[in-house]
């Protein structure tokens, strides 16, 4: 499963921040906000040896693309890029990188938080933790079934009407 996946938003290979920065460079943006999520060596008091991320590649790529677009529209930021890694990751390796560029820092920070949290809450990605004794478990996640409401700060704002 998930072998050799390389899509714009989901990839098996280590994430490259430099490439994302080069792809999003803009002269009209004075703010660059970056989030990188790395694999931690503990979770809820238990030592963690490594993780395996799996994803529904096509659906995940589509949903992350939609989150990017929503982020750009909702926060009026010209650039938002999200890339998530899948496969086996060791402690310290980067699992997700989100880059936002905006004219000013306030909208860059807000957009970055929305993009990161929306990806965690909506993208069909699953994290399996492995422990030093060789056992493992899937991390309890966010339900994406109909009827389960997202946190308030991830609800979309009403579209602004053109005046």
């Amino acid at each position, binding site marked *: 499963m998930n072998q050799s996946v390389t899509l714009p938003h989901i990839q098996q290979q280590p994430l490259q921040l430099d490439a994302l920065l080069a792809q999003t460079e803009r002269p009209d943006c004075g703010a660059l906000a970056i989030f990188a999520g790395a694999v931690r060596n503990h979770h809820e008091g238990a030592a963690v040896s490594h993780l395996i991320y799996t994803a529904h590649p096509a*659906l995940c790529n589509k949903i992350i693309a939609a989150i990017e677009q929503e982020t750009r529209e909702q926060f009026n930021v010209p650039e938002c890029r999200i890339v998530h890694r899948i496969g086996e990751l060791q402690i310290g390796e980067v699992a997700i990188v989100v880059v936002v560029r905006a004219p000013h820092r306030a909208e860059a920070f807000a957009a970055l938080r929305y993009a990161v949290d929306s990806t965690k809450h909506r993208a069909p990605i699953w994290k399996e933790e492995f422990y030093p004794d060789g056992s493992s478990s899937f991390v309890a*996640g966010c339900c*994406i079934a109909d009827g389960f409401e997202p946190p308030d700060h991830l609800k979309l704002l009403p579209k602004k009407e053109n005046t």
Partner: protein
Amino acid sequence: MESMNTITIRFWGITARLAGAEQRVLQLSAGARVADAVEHLRLDATLSGELPRCAYAVGDDMVGLDHPLADGDELSVLPPVSGG
């Protein structure tokens, strides 16, 4: 004779562990909906407890329980997500 559709159920995340397989093939009556496939999966005692928290997709489209299934569809079972 009643017409049947072949539906491949694709399990993701913990549902693959609970189902003991990454996929399972069902024969459902023509006109069956996602809810009919889920009803079939509920017969699996190991899997049934997780199903109320699952979402569903056909191909790369999220679908509801009333979505009609076509012969050859791949129905993904999507448990709660934990990326990031």
